[in-house]
């Protein structure tokens, strides 16, 4: 059974102080409709969200959103898998479709993180670490990524300033992206003089606090949605997790979970990742970018950051990576991020234009991450 994306909706990522989770979800569903997506044929709803239970004290979120969009009485579920929640929801949707339980699944990623002060935000995202062994002792997601960054920079002999190239590129890439949160350029000096979050990571290496919602329709080959609505095909998807606690890992400069995903993708799809045109990765706290680029086999170990410094992966390069700004600039509404990534790649493959230039690509890959490389996912998309 082949599986297609037959619609996508994107809403502007910002700090939406005046909107509820349901309001945000409604916006992306409305955008599917605006873009000609077929909502009447939907027979299942999956909501991807990571913090509703903690920040909004709201669980069973999919039931609530189903009510709001007039979808009660059907199959609904909520998927939580950290920053990979969105990708996990889409893989689940794909499985529902393949199994025959549903023909068209609406996946909504939604997250609202800016209602609370920094300490609450940090506490929330630090739930992606081992609560008893790490977070309890004051480790935060930022400090975990900082350990990775320290280790990477020292092992491969980079300076702290070398990290700046990535966020500068991400801010450039997001400039003309309508739904991106941070649409302004930054300079090397601004990056390297921004406040330290957890040394060597600074504010401008870090993702913003984001509220947003994106949605996609995942459809079966034999669904009643007409063929011309097909925008991209989900060729293959896989997800793996690996040791959560940093102290248990043999190596801090790579994500073992990503190796598992890469192996499964290449084996399952018979596609060499080097042939992929467009890649969207979770570049959390900047250091994730070179680690994931190396993990995908695009650069040799230790040379991922060098290749970024050398100007690789920009729009027009093969592969182009994060041409819509990544978590750094598009924004990082954690549970929704994966849905944004898949919607973006779908849009780029189907009718994509970035900065006025047409994106020529047949193959796209979305790599989402939960925690500090604890969960990695890969979704291969092909132009229809």
């Amino acid at each position: 059974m082949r599986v297609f994306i037959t619609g996508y909706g994107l809403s502007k990522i910002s700090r939406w102080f005046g909107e509820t989770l349901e309001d945000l979800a409604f916006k992306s569903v409305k955008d599917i409709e605006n873009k000609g997506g077929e909502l009447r044929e939907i027979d299942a709803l999956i909501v991807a969200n990571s913090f509703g239970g903690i920040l909004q004290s709201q669980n069973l979120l999919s039931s609530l959103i189903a009510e709001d969009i007039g979808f009660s009485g059907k199959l609904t579920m909520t998927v939580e898998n950290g920053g990979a929640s969105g990708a996990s929801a889409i893989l689940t949707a794909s499985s529902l479709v393949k199994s025959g339980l549903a023909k068209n699944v609406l996946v909504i990623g939604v997250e609202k993180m800016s209602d609370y002060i920094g300490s609450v935000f940090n506490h929330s995202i630090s739930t992606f670490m081992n609560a008893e062994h790490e977070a309890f002792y004051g480790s935060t997601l930022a400090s975990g990524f900082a350990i990775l960054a320290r280790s990477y920079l020292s092992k491969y002999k980079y300076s702290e300033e070398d990290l700046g190239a990535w966020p500068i590129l991400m801010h450039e890439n997001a400039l003309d992206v309508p739904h991106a949160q941070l649409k302004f350029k930054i300079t090397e000096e601004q990056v390297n003089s921004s406040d330290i979050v957890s040394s060597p990571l600074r504010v401008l290496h870090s993702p913003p606090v984001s509220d947003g919602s994106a949605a996609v329709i995942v459809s079966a080959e034999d669904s009643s949605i007409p063929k011309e609505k097909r925008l991209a095909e989900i060729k293959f998807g896989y997800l793996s997790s690996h040791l959560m606690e940093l102290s248990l890992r043999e190596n801090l400069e790579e994500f073992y979970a990503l190796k598992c995903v890469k192996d499964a993708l290449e084996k399952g799809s018979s596609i060499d990742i080097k042939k992929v045109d467009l890649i969207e990765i979770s570049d959390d706290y900047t250091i994730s970018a070179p680690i994931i680029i190396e993990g995908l086999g695009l650069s040799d170990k230790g040379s991922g950051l060098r290749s970024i410094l050398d100007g690789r992966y920009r729009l027009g390069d093969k592969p182009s990576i994060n041409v819509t700004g990544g978590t750094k600039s598009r924004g990082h509404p954690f549970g929704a991020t994966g849905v944004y990534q898949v919607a973006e790649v779908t849009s780029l493959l189907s009718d994509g234009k970035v900065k006025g230039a047409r994106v020529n690509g047949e193959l796209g890959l979305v790599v989402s991450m939960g925690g500090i490389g604890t969960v990695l996912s890969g979704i291969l998309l092909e132009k229809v």
Partner: protein
Amino acid sequence: MSVFPESKVGIVGWGSYFPIYRLSMEEIEKQWGFPNGTGNGLGMKEKAVAYTDEDATTMGYEAARNAIARSEIDPKKIGAVFFGTESKPYAVKPSATILAEALGITPDTMASDLEFACRAGSEGMRASIGLVSSGMIGYALAVGSDTAQANPGDILEFTASSGASAFVIGPSREAAAVFEASYSYVTDTPDFWRRGLSPYPLHGEAFTGEPAYFDHIINAVKGLLEKTGLRPSDFDYAVFHQPNGKFPLKVGERLGFPKDKVIPGLLTPFVGNTYNGSALSGLSNLLDIAKAGSRILLAPFGSGAGSDAYSIIVTDKAEVKRSLAPTVSYYLKRKMNITYSEYAKFRRLIKKIGGD
């Protein structure tokens, strides 16, 4: 432009007061381990600190004394005293009466304390305009004064400071500056608050910016411009609430007021955010220096939240009155730098048993 009731009324006397002590940003950075330059990043150089024998009423008194000196009126003629503060020494028992009594205004007067975070003094000013323009009273005294509190180690500590400004509001024919029009914009927006019995305020971090400070000031100023038909280019100066050294420039830019119109009334970099004294002290400084005929936009803001926008025109009487009391620049120059430990003692951050 239509004539508004405000035009019957003006500022007949103005005055400010800042304590002599200054705490540098470096002292706070060193104490709490903030990266060097954190204070500078907020557009701050140093902040004024009140001594142990000073509070909102003593500073309000000093500022009001200067304002009354410039008004050249008998204090007995003042028919209302509005004291705007969020750091009054008594939770229950008016501070306005302490000022009224000490200044020789009692007993034939109204007097009350107003609370609206940093905007209460401004509300006192707008209420005074109403009372005087209606003819109910001849003169009113509006005071904004605060010994602003900040949780030690909170980012707020870089700016929260002490100071006061006061204005005698009276008939426009006697005024150093006349009001042209005013407009208020208020919503229930909880960006910053302090619950009863809590020693320090809490704030919503980024929520204090866009949905609070910027939204309210921009809407108040737009309301004033719409009401009067004036444009930003009609104003020679613009004074906004000054929670740090950056926001006023940013809100000015967004409303179309260039930096050089905002900087003359921007005192926060040198004395900190004096809360109810903040925008009003900026105005006080402009009355010390502006030429007759200058048009000033004044837009205080208070968390919670609200903003008032006033159009004010300086008259030729300002120049004569300036020498009748110490100017803002006198208080800015009169300073002694202190250490964080002295600051902790002066602001009673060190708890001890017995004594005071």
